[in-house]
């Protein structure tokens, strides 16, 4: 069955990880260039959340959330 909507992955701020930690994780998991990782991590730090991207299937989005959570950073997904 084809899914009707995409799935958004959102990175959440927390009280444990520093901006550098989140940037490093995004760089490693998503292969983001360090400056993009820092920009996104800064957005997480300032706004509490930042959307990492949207993915066509839940499995794909969950896989990314698993990889991020594996490194101790909180990520969630939602239908978009």
């Amino acid at each position, binding site marked *: 069955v084809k899914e009707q909507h995409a799935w958004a992955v959102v990175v959440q701020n927390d009280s444990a*990880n520093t901006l*550098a930690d989140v940037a490093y994780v995004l760089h490693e998991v998503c292969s983001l260039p360090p400056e993009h990782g820092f920009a996104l991590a800064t957005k997480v730090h300032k706004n509490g959340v930042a959307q990492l991207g949207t993915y066509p299937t839940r499995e794909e989005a*969950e896989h990314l*959330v698993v990889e991020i959570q594996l490194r*101790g950073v909180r990520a*969630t997904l939602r239908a978009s």
Partner: protein
Amino acid sequence: MAQFFHARAADEAVAVDMSADVARFLRVIASDLVRVLEGGRTGGRHYRSLRTGRVFPPAYSDRRDSRGFRDRHGAVLREHIAASGRRVLAGWDGSRTVTLDHKVVRDWFIVYGHARTSMKRWQGSWIWVHTTAGTSTPFGIV
């Protein structure tokens, strides 16, 4: 005595230098994290076991969806972290200096990143790691 943890880039690796107490605590933290992830318990009074729900925060706003996420991925995630912990312990004897290649850095990040969030209430305060870039980041718990 001042406690410290210094990490600096060294060719294709990371060279770490730390105080003896930090080394000892990091060993204990990795050992305890592995033990509780494997279903064992630590002897500490603040900390006994580690539920999957505490290791991995809700992935969805809906509680049932989050439970499903943990059912699908929780066991694999726990084992993945425990395996990283075992590699950290196997590759480092607790000495004050250690050189980590990038794969090992990933294991350290996974182990101590999780120790920091999952075991936060276990111990009281933080040690702060001063990197050569001049920034500080909480890395372990003392």
